[in-house]
Structures are given as C-alpha cells and as structure tokens.
C-alpha cells in the first residue's frame, strides 16, 4: 500500500540514488572520502528536509481508522499513541501526559476545528468518515499561538477533477450499531463540489447486564459536510466548507428501588461550522490567503423524569444537572507566504472571538472575549545541511493583555540517513471558559475569575530520525513545562498558581513495502502535575503496534492494531489536599479482514474490536500526605466498548 506521503518520500529517494551513482563515479576518480560524506549529507537533506514535516510524530490512515471501527473523533483519539482516554460519568477525558485535550489543537484541513479548545467539546459530534488521514505533530513551527504544543491535524479527501464520483459505506456491528454515509463529488474543473451525508447510531453501554442504567449513553448522529472549490483564475481559488452535525445522546438512569420511576439525562449537541478561504498568487513566489470561519455550538443537557408505568415524562428544571452550554466563534486570518530557494517566510494576522450564546451576560458582564495575533515565521536553509526556522507570535487577548511567543527550530542532517532536529516553542492555552465567566451558582465549583491568564507551555522537542528506503525510524524527547495553570486559592477563587512538567520519550518505526506495513512505537511519559506544590513524579509506559498486510495475488487485506498501556497515575490539588488518581493498565487489540471485488469498487470488511474484551478498568483515588497515601475510593472507568464484531460494505464509483 502506498500513501501520498510515501510517494513523495520514494520520489526523493529515487532522485537520491540517481545522484549518488554519479557521485560514486566521481569519488572513484578523485578518491576523496571527505567530499563523499559532504555529498551524502547534501543528498540526505534534500531527502529529509523536503520529504516531510519532521515534527510529525504519528500518522493514522483511513485504513487504520477502519480496522478499529472508529466512528467519531473521540474514538479515533483513543487510537493515537501517546493519548490516554477514559470515560467516567458523562465525560470522556483525553490527555497526553499533563496536557489535556483543552491544550491540544485540533485542525481540519489546516484550520481550527474546535474553537479555542476551552469550552468543552463532545468529540462524538465530529464524524471521521470524510477523513483520509490524521497526523499528530509535536511542537510544529506554525502560525498558531494557542494550543500548538501538540497539534492533531485531520485531512479530508482531496478534491478530485472528475465530473462525478461517489463513495458509500455501511457498517453494522453485533452491538446493534449502524453507521452509514455517502460522499459524492461533482466537478467541471472550475467548480468542484463534495457533499457528504452520514447517519451513525451507537448503542448504549450498560452498567451491568440486565440493568437499565448506562455507563455510556446511546448516541445518534446526523452529519452533513459540504466542500466547494471555485477556481476563479488560474492563480486564484475560493474554498468553502461547511460541517454540520446533530448528536443526540441518551444516558439512562437506574430504576429507583420499589418504583417505576427513572431519571435520564439527554444531551443534544448541534454543531455548525462554515469556513471560507480565498487564495491568490500575488507574485511568482508570494501567495496571499484570506480565511474566515464562523462556528456555532449548542450543547443542551436535560434531566428527564420518567414513569415507566404510565409512560409520562417531564423535564426536570432543577439545577442539579450538568450545565447546558453554547458558544459562537468567529475567526479570520490574513496570511502572506513567500517561497524561495533558500529563504521562506510567512506573516500575517489572525483575529478570533468567542462568545457564550447560552449565558450571554452573567451579572452584567458579557461572557465573551476576543484576541488578535500578529505572526511571522522565517526559514533559512544553508547548503542543505542546516535549516533554521523561527518566528514569533504576538497575541493580544481582550481580557488579559499581550503575550510574545517565540519559536525556533534547528535541523541538521550530518549523514544521508540521519536527521536531528531541536525545537523550542512557547504557546498559550486559555483557561476553561467557565473558570473565567461562570459563577459558583452555575457550576457549584470555585469562584470564577475573569482575569484568569492563559496557561503558558514552554516546549523543547529533540528528535532523531533515521530513514532508508525500507524503514524509517525516529526517537525523541518532548519536554513540556507549563505555568499559570488555574488552581483554587484559599478563598476558593481560581488563580494562576499551578505548574507542571512532563517529559515524553518515544521511539517509533515504520517498515513498509508493497505487502506489509508495520508501525510499532513505544513511549514513556514522566509527569509531575503539581510541580508548584509537590515532587510527585509519575511514569507510565505504552507500546503500540499498527500492522497492515496485503496478501499477494489475492484481493485480501489484513490489519491489526494493538495498544498496551501501563498504569497511569496523576495528581491534583483541592482545598490544599493532594489527591492521586491511578488508572490500571489496559490492552486493546483490534483486527480486520477486507476483500475487494468488482475491480476494487466493492469492499467487504469484517472487523473485531477489543479482542481482549477489556472495557472497564479501575481508577483508584488516594489522599496523600508527605509519607504515605490512603485509598479513598475506586471508580470503574470505561476505556473501550466490549468485544464487537462489525461488517462493513463500501462501494465506490470513481
């Protein structure tokens, strides 16, 4: 199997072989070993520096999403090495060491997908059937000022220059899930349209066999995603994208003892995103892009009293339920990119605004903030052995002031198959919206602080990459030092008092040929969540393996994904008391078999997910003192659905 990125890489490598042959002759004539080494380094830089973004840690392909039968972004993130995910109550928590999802940027086709990440998102509302691949990058050089320590990039299918094409698929599982979607495209080379419709139903996961109460509620989602490209001139194009989803989740409560009464929690998420981009070539080397986005989110949660005898149900308006929220987000960016032989640069401005559309004003204060960022990045390559990239982003937030965020990256290619890079960057993560705006009467938590500053993440990423035609490997260290983390003060108000550090050491390989692709990776996270108050350092390991196999002379493909996660401990502080939460290790294994028919137009797949059937694992909570810790409670968290078999039929007319 080959991917666009692999094609690019193999293209560079073939060029390398060609040049190398000439140089060998040259060396034979001159017998000059030193020049041979320099030449190799030069070739290696051509191969590596242009082959791929060295900040990319992992790439998840569509085939791998299918192996795990992942149907939404939440399920996809559970596959990504480095990320830890569990569901407790109504909330799913996803984190990378000390960084939770609110500090990890998620982009779709290189534009922000999830506002400022600080409003709480239900990632079940984001479909993945329109994605081609996903990349995870550590500390990339980017124009993003917010949450760019780790960036997860989603990429959709590229526009096809065909008059008409259609792809459709349906997946049915033994858990009574059904996922169906259709994606079609039309093009006359000037106007290109892609439209996708999807319906996804995911059955509930019950607390126990025979019980009514659910650990994870059943969910039904309808999606409509549209993309339109207008090639106005050869050098000017307009892109418009609209993503719309409506998600309904029903969390069933237990039957009250001796009664026919229950209390359910229903959730309805409506998400609408409209994005536009106008791109024009202003000179041979300069491109000007104007982007804009509006994004509206409504997350309505209702508490429903039901009598299972009479069938009567009524909404309960008590305040003892999770808060309904809703936000509007506006985004605009003007960017100038310059591409030359050795010197590349980009600069521009970015404006964004986030406002609450459920509690527009609270006690006379408008719950809204905005920011603008001026950014500039420059990249210089010296003799193809050294590349220096750097830049700065000046962000001004309407509530908390200005921040200058530098970034610098040095890449060296001392040998033809070796590349070393080091990156330092500083980014911001806004505090949770409710910490700034929602009073105690709404949250039941600490007193809000409208002047709460963003969390500052200082990141150092060192990476060593080894590449040859058959195997690529990389190893590195990602060190993140965070400051100004919101904590509750003695008067129960949120303040910027917290600090944390995390160090992740990783190693990964990518072995690929025409028949087999194997991607093993191993990570060790070292985390200190309370650097400001305690010396507790926790380590947790993980091993991942992604494998795809094409059986020669057949139309049969096989795939396996395995994730083996060690015990994961974190700490938190509340009311001057330190707690530790320790989640047991887990192992997840999925496999699939695919058969292609009718000139590969029809695909039949059979997959099995969670072969070890590890669905729930214990999460212990300890209260700690200087010398010991005491167990105060254990919760059962959901880390995956129980073992499920799925059958998928996909048909494409291209």
């Amino acid at each position, binding site marked *: 199997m080959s991917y666009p990125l692999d094609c690019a890489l193999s293209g560079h490598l073939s060029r390398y072989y060609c040049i190398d042959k000439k140089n060998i002759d040259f060396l034979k004539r001159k017998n000059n070993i030193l020049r041979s080494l320099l030449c190799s380094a030069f070739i290696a830089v051509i191969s590596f520096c242009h082959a791929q973004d060295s900040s990319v840690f992992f790439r998840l392909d569509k085939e791998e999403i299918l192996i795990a039968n992942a149907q939404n972004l939440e399920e996809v993130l559970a596959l990504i090495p480095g990320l830890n995910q569990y569901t407790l109550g109504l909330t799913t928590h996803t984190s990378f060491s000390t960084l939770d999802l609110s500090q990890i940027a998620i982009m779709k086709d290189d534009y922000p997908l999830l506002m400022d990440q600080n409003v709480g998102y239900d990632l079940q509302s984001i479909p993945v059937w329109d994605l081609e691949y996903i990349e995870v990058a550590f500390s990339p050089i980017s124009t993003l000022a917010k949450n760019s320590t780790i960036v997860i990039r989603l990429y959709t299918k590229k526009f096809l220059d065909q008059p008409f094409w259609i792809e459709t698929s349906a997946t049915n599982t033994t858990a009574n899930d059904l996922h169906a979607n259709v994606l079609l495209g039309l093009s006359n080379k000037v106007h290109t349209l892609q439209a996708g419709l999807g319906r996804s139903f995911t059955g509930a996961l019950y607390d126990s066999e025979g019980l009514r109460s659910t650990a994870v509620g059943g969910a039904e989602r309808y999606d409509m995603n549209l993309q339109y490209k207008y090639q106005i001139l050869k050098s000017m194009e307009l892109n418009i994208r609209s993503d719309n989803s409506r998600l309904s989740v029903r969390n069933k409560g237990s039957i009250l003892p001796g009664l*026919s*009464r229950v209390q359910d929690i229903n959730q309805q998420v409506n998400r609408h995103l409209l994005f536009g981009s106008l791109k024009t070539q202003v000179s041979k080397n300069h491109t000007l892009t104007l982007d804009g986005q509006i994004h509206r989110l409504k997350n309505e949660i209702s508490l429903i009293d*039901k009598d299972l005898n009479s069938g009567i149900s009524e909404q309960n308006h008590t305040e003892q339920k999770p808060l309904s929220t809703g936000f509007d987000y506006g985004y605009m960016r003007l960017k100038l990119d310059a591409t030359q032989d050795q010197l590349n640069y980009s600069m521009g401005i970015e404006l964004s605004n986030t406002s609450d559309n459920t509690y527009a004003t609270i006690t006379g204060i408008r719950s809204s903030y905005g920011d603008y960022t001026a950014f500039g990045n420059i990249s210089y390559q010296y003799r193809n052995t050294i590349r220096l990239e750097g830049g700065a982003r000046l962000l001004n937030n309407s509530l908390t002031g200005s921040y200058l965020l530098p970034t610098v990256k040095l890449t060296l290619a001392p040998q033809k198959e070796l590349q070393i890079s080091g990156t330092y960057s500083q980014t911001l993560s806004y505090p949770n919206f409710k910490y700034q705006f929602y009073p105690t009467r709404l949250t039941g938590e600490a007193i809000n602080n409208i002047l709460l500053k963003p969390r500052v993440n200082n990141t150092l990423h060192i990476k060593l990459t080894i590449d040859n035609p058959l195997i690529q490997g990389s190893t590195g260290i990602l060190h993140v030092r965070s400051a100004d983390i919101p904590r509750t003060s003695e008067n129960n108000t949120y303040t910027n008092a917290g600090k944390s550090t995390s160090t992740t050491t990783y190693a990964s390989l990518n072995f690929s040929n025409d028949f087999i692709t194997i991607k093993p990776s191993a990570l060790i996270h070292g985390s200190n969540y309370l650097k400001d108050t305690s010396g507790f350092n926790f380590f947790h390991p993980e091993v991942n393996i992604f494998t795809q196999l094409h059986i020669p002379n057949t139309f049969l493909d096989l795939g396996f994904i395995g994730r083996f996660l060690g015990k994961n401990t974190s700490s938190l502080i509340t009311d001057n008391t330190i707690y530790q939460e320790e989640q047991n290790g887990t192992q997840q294994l999925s496999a699939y078999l695919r058969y292609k028919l009718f000139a590969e137009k029809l695909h039949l797949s059979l997959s099995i997910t969670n072969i070890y059937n590890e669905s729930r694992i214990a999460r212990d909570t300890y209260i700690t003192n200087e010398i010991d810790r005491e167990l105060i409670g254990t919760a059962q968290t959901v880390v995956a659905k129980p073992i499920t078999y799925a059958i998928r039929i996909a048909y494409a007319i291209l």
Partner: protein
Amino acid sequence: MKCSKYILIFLLLSACFEPDEILPKSKIQTTEIRLNTTNNQAAYLCLSELSRSYDSTGSNWHLRFENDANKWGIFLNTLSQVAVYNTKNTNFDSITEYYNLSQADWQFDISTSEGLTPSIGDWGDFSFDNPKSFKNIYLISWPGHLSRLVYKFQLLDAQNGSYHFRYGTLDGSLDKTIWLPKDEQYSFGYFSFESNEIATEVEPRKDRWDICFTFLSDSLAKHEGIPHLPTLEADIGLYQAVLLNERLNQAAIDTVMSLEDTDFFYAKNLPYLEQKEIYELFYTWDDDLKMIEVNPKLIVYLTDGNRYYAIRATNFVQSPDGTFTTELNVKQL
C-alpha cells in the same frame, strides 16, 4: 435503483434507541403505628423500609439535649409532665428544701411559629464557640409515686460538643455533675434524673427514620374541640403530632388527588413548606359522634427534593389501655 432506495430507508430507520420497558405501578404499603402514653411515647418510621420502625421504649427520661453542632436547646419530656422553673439564682447551694415552691410558675415546652420552643429558653450566651452559661438554677419537676418530685439543675458550661451540668435534690442528698456528649448520629441526647444516667433506646439513628409519631404540648386554644391529654397547666394540652426528620422535611398536604391515583408528577408540583412538626395531622373531630376519626382524603406528601412519599391514614383506634393505633398507607412516588 429500487433496491438501493430500500437499503437507504433501512439504514436510516434501523438501529434506533431502544424503547423503555413498561413496569408495574408502585405499590401502596400499609403499616401500623402504636403509641402509648406510658411505655411508648414515640414511634419512628423509615418510609423507604416500613419494616424498619422503631418504638421508643426508653421513655423514662426528663430532659433531651439537641445534638446538632450549632444548636444548644434543652427540651422537657412533656408527656411525662416534666415542668421547669427558672429561679434566676446562680448559687447552687442556696436552693434548698426551704425554697418556696408555691411561688414557682411552672413552664412547659410549647409550640410557637418557630416550632416547639424549649421553656428552659436561652440558658447562656451562644455567641461563643462554646456557649457561656448564665448559670441560673432551674427547678425541674415531674410526677412521683405520691407527689411531684423537684430537682435543681444548673448548666455549668458547654465544651467540645458536650453539655456540662450539675443537678441534685433540694435537700442536698444528691449532688452530681455530668458531661453529656453530643452524638450527631442522633437528633437528641436524653437524660433521666431518676436513673441518674444518659437514657438510650429513646430514638434511632437520624439516618434510620423519616417521620416520628409522638405527643407534643400546645395551647388548647389552637385546637378547639380536639381531645387532648392534660398537663399541669390548665390551658396546655398534649396532642398527637408528627416530627419530621430534617433530611425529609419538605411537606405538603393535599385532599384533591387520591393516594391510588397520585404520582410523582403530581407530587412534585405541589407547594412544599419546610416543617419540623405537624400537629393533629391525619385526624378530624366528628362533632356528631364526638370522636376522633381519620380523614382518608387527606394525603401528606414528604420530600427532600429527590424522594417523594405520599402518606394516608386509613384507621384510628384508641384502646382502653391508652394505646393509640393508626393504620397508615405509604406510597413512594
């Protein structure tokens, strides 16, 4: 093409949320409450588990002391006709058998708009973490075998969640000092002057009862025509009443919907008031038959905001030995 249409409809309509099963109606449960003025002055009931009723057999007590952290009230056993008189004297030894008892104006606990009010009143300055006693000497009186007995009683102080008091006979033959610790698992701590010890088995733990049927004293004028048990005061009588546990003290009374038809949705829209005690709850006086009878249309609703209970009395019998029996229907909603 036709086939694909059907497939599309199937995909859109199949795999939906499972419908809820239909459950039988919640049952009406029945229980009996028995009260006796001499050996069972209170009956405690746990509404979620009616079999867990508790009869107050340890009724030989004279004073009860509030156990809540910030409450320091001291109540009398009015059913045993315990009365109190504040001498305003602070010298314990100066109150002797020669004290002129005929001038004593004996007081009983009585219901006011704020609930049952202790006649001992404010015995100290409660603005301190540990209240400072005024150290007044109270005379406590209750019926003996031949005549009323009188003890003197002085609150010394209260420290570390305990009452510290001194008591004794007027002739000085008994002089004792007692620490009575607060136990917040129980609403009250009880003390008996006869046994000189803290009384137990008077009430169950707070988390094991919801409603208590007992007798409370009140002015006759408030309950015109209703029979009462006499007290030392001619205008004060003892009436049947219920005490509500503070964990289930939102109460509403309704006569419109029958117990059979009422449900959670009806109950949750009723206007609730926080109550500590309710007098003569289920009973009415039949002027023609000259007897107490229950009102089966009257439903009492109790809630804590989550749990809802509807209670109805169906029968009331007074036996010659002084036992009052009330049959109750309880429906959890």
